[in-house]
């Protein structure tokens, strides 16, 4: 299946159910640090549900059940010994709508490192905040107003603030669920450029409805349909020469 050589996370025979309804059907996939991996597919295809299984976000949904195995560095994240809070620090998440805390810009970024005890003191914390905002490409825009509320920023800035917040706890994997779908084209381009820059430092998995976005930011693309992983391969192959007719019909706009 064209798997990356050095997988950061591996999913094996993963099925996700909401009550009796099976949303993800027996999916196996590897994601690595060297590539940005995009999950594409029509609404309801299970791509977001599958993404949320990577840091056990589905645990918060009462009737959701996950079968199969998802491993981070070879360790099953669904094993009983797994600390979910720790897991979500290692596998961070960015959502469709920017959701900064109603606190200052500084506090939004400092919150995670502080509760996880990652900073030795104020100077250390300042350094983490600065580094994270720099990596998220937001530092120059906010360095003189770190005490202002995060919610006062523009949508695109808020989303980069959320990415800075995810980065601040030094994760290994960043999951992004439609991170730019609520943003204008310029803000979207900044997020895409940021994804490009973060590649290699973190394993990045992005769910997107926007196929052009998947084509622009990812090196590996997985196409989901009706809960199944239909095709997974190099992004350039998926978009120029998909092997499965269902993939082709979707990406050429012939769906249904």
């Amino acid at each position, binding site marked *: 299946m064209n798997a990356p050589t050095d997988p950061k996370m591996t999913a094996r025979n993963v099925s996700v159910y909401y009550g009796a309804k099976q949303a993800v059907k027996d999916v196996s996939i590897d994601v690595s640090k060297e590539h940005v991996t995009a999950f594409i597919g029509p609404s309801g295809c299970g791509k977001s549900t599958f993404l949320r299984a990577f840091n056990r976000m589905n645990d918060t949904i009462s009737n959701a059940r996950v079968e199969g195995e998802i491993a981070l560095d070879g360790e099953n994240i669904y094993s009983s010994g797994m600390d979910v809070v720790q897991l979500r620090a290692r596998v961070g998440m960015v959502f469709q709508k920017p959701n900064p805390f109603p606190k200052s810009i500084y506090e939004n970024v400092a919150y995670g490192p502080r509760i996880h005890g990652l900073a030795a003191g104020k100077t250390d914390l300042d350094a983490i905040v600065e580094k994270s905002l720099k990596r998220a490409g937001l530092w120059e825009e906010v360095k003189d107003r770190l005490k202002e509320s995060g919610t006062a920023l523009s949508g695109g800035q808020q989303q980069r603030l959320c990415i800075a917040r995810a980065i601040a706890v030094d994760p290994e994997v960043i999951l992004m669920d439609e991170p730019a779908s609520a943003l204008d084209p310029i803000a979207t381009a900044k997020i895409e450029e940021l994804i490009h820059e973060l590649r290699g430092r973190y394993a990045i998995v992005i769910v997107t409805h926007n*196929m*052009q976005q998947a*084509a622009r930011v990812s090196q590996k693309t997985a196409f989901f349909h009706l809960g199944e992983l239909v095709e997974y391969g190099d992004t350039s192959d998926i*978009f*120029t*020469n*998909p092997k499965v*007719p269902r*993939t*082709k*019909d979707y*990406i*050429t*706009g*012939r*769906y*249904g």
Partner: protein
Amino acid sequence: METTGGHTLKAFDEDMDELRALISEMGGLAEEAIRESMRCLIQRDYDGARAVVEADGKLDVLEAQAEAAVVRLIALRAPMADDLREAVAALKISGLVERIGDYAKNNAKRVQLFAEAGRIEPLSLLPEMARIAAEMVHNALDAFIQRDAAKAHEVCVRDKALDDFYNSIFRALLTFMMESPKNITESAHLLFVAKNLERIGDHATNIAEMVYYAATGDRITDRPRGHNPADPE
């Protein structure tokens, strides 16, 4: 690969159809130029040959239109997968068909250099060669319109026949020239005519290769090649 149907966005299908129609029209004109230039050569129809030369301008105009249509399609429709391959193929094919037209025009230009009377024996092979060349162009373009990889492959295979014809004519003309220096001027022109037809076959093959790629995403790897007199023995 089977396609389930048209695009959800109907305008996309209309744009693709418009592009195919342009390429198809170009193919028809080029094919006609090949046949007509040969007819004029055989019948020494000088007026007809001039008409072929003039008609070539239309191919240049259509090529520019096809190019604009492809650029517009890529900009406005962002084609993917086989649509993208087809758009790129159309762009290259329009250029190849335009070149085919140039070769046919070149043959037509040579008609006036032949005297009304007189008969050159190797001439008898040329109409059949032109017929095959025109048919290859026709089939390559048909394959494009129908996204038919098998038909495209047949065109590639056929190219060897044209190469063989060219080799026969090449040898026959050499013999003819050796018989008498008086034959050299006309023979040299006929050699160019044959070479033009052989090049047309190569271009038709290139078109077929693009069609095969557009239809399958893969390249043809096993096409037979005829021997070329320029190749070392």
